[in-house]
């Protein structure tokens, strides 16, 4: 159980700038950003396209497709579908592409490979 208000710093003397400059970390950052940025842009565009249609293309959105179900309702429900799909996609991407490499870097830092003054083994109580 947590008994300390601070984040326990297993990696106090770490040279984070060195970690940041490693090829592996750059790769992790690239993988993260190359997924989340385009995806964020895509779903925001799709969402605002929907809001604009509902706002300024009322006639189109009111077109009945089947019974009383109109295009507006279908597009609205598709927003739900796309949200669920992106969620699933992101989770599988993180599990495959982000988590392993993040765990590797984390273990290296905690194993003192990036300590500022040599391989000092202090401050770790694991």
């Amino acid at each position: 159980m947590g008994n300390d208000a601070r984040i326990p710093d297993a990696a106090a003397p770490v040279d984070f700038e060195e970690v940041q400059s490693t090829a592996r970390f750059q790769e992790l950052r690239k993988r993260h950003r190359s997924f989340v940025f385009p995806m964020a842009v895509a779903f925001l565009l799709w969402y605002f396209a929907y809001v604009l249609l509902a706002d300024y293309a009322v006639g189109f959105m009111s077109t009945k497709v089947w019974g009383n179900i109109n295009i507006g309702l279908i597009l609205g429900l598709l927003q739900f579908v796309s949200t669920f799909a992106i969620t699933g996609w992101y989770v599988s991407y993180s599990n495959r592409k982000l988590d392993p490499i993040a765990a590797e870097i984390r273990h290296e830092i905690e194993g003192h490979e990036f300590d500022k003054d040599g391989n000092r083994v202090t401050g770790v109580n694991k």
Partner: protein
Amino acid sequence: MIGIATSVDVAQLKETTLLNMGIFGLFVAVTMVIVLRASRNNKTAADYYAAGRSFTGSQNGTAIAGDYLSAASFLGITGAIAVNGYDGFMYSIGFLVAWLVALLLVAELLRNTGKFTMADVLSFRLKQRPVRIAAAISTLAVCFFYLLAQMAGAGSLISLLLGISDWGGQALVIIVVGALMIMYVLIGGMKGTTWVQIIKAILLIAGAAVMTLWVLAIYGFNLSSLLGAAVETSGNPAVLNPGLQYGKSETSKLDFMSLGLALVLGTAALPHVLMRFYTVPTAKEARKSVVWSIWLIGLFYLFTLVLGYGAAALVGAETIKTAPGGVNAAAPLLAFHLGGPLLLGFISAVAFATILAVVAGLTITAAASFAHDIYANVISKGKADADTEVKVARRTVVVIGILAILGGILANGQNVAFLVALAFAVAASANLPTIVYSLFWRRFTTQGAVWSMYGGLGSAILLIIFSPVVSGAATSMIKDAHFALFPLSNPGIVSIPLAFLLGWLGTVLDKKREDTAKQAEMEVRSLTGVGAEKAVDH
């Protein structure tokens, strides 16, 4: 009494008051026992604010859903769809899609970088004092707006159930709700509050599911017939089309855009939602919680579509509007129509519980922010020990509780979903730009953060004050005054871009550079979770 000719006789509701109160009392008793049990090992600040980081992803995801599916979602959206048709559905979609911003850009990075509050992350690599103060002020402001909405929901519900329409009676019940909430938070801290959220989320989703199936069964599980019946009862085919509420003029169309923007960008900036990410041990669990909550919340909003149109078809918009509690009464009235006093009692108890739980969540967030950010880090400059900090947090809970009670009495009667949308606009303007910039923009500086936060917060609140929400319209809080200089009721479309712009401008014009080592540390920590992952077992 109005509504005698319709299917729901509002006057009958009074006869079920005792039953409603009984079910509600039972909920309070059961949750209080759980809170007491959960609070036994509340010793440290990490226990009090972050529940010892002991929750699993699925538990926390359910609690997030509990926090998020507030009275606004249940009472407000159902009412908005019942009365305004398709335009009410817009709330559901915005509230749901917004979770992708939280999932992709904020949740895990935030979990890896912070400790208890939003300000922990924002001030990580910038100057502590100014950024912390700004973040704490905006946290308090957003929580206050959100609290107003919940308290207004409590007022609506009470007036419907007890048939109390006089000011004093409603105020008394708001005071009781507020006092109960203060007790939960004082005794249970984050752990007790989280358990209340979990229980309530399950009850709420189950209750909504039962009602949804019931309504669908009436129409032979055919959505099209349900929609047809809604058109028939309202006598207006436009309830199925967009624009019934917001399509009236160019101004109202712009207002709709503004609402859409605030909804989608607000969630990832709500301090009480952000704080929930700290109750799990790792970033992976934070991700799991968001996934859980997206599924639960998405499912729930699909229910509200059926419930809203169901209320429009079976109860009728006119009856809803004239019932005590107005638009917010759609869901309870539908419950009464379907299952009589027993279902009404259950649904109302759940709605009460919802309000109670969300108010508790908001209060603990605001208290944590004041005690941790302003008291511990600014007033006593980091010298306060954890015990004193928790003591301050507990006292803050009482103060905030009293403010919420007073605000609730004032905001009584407004549509809850609409009031919550204002809280979203304030959150998206004040917090989101700084959160995004500090996580992703290396060059971002303290001046940018401070300009963006105060600029976003100030402009959002000023625009609300000078909007038709506060004065000049029939539905305003102050009906007799006319100082509505700003035509839109949601400020998002102006204040959110302005806050992003100010964050950029403040940074480019800042001659000082921030510490690159701190930036490197934040970036490495946020993506790898080093340090934060072990927060549980030290």
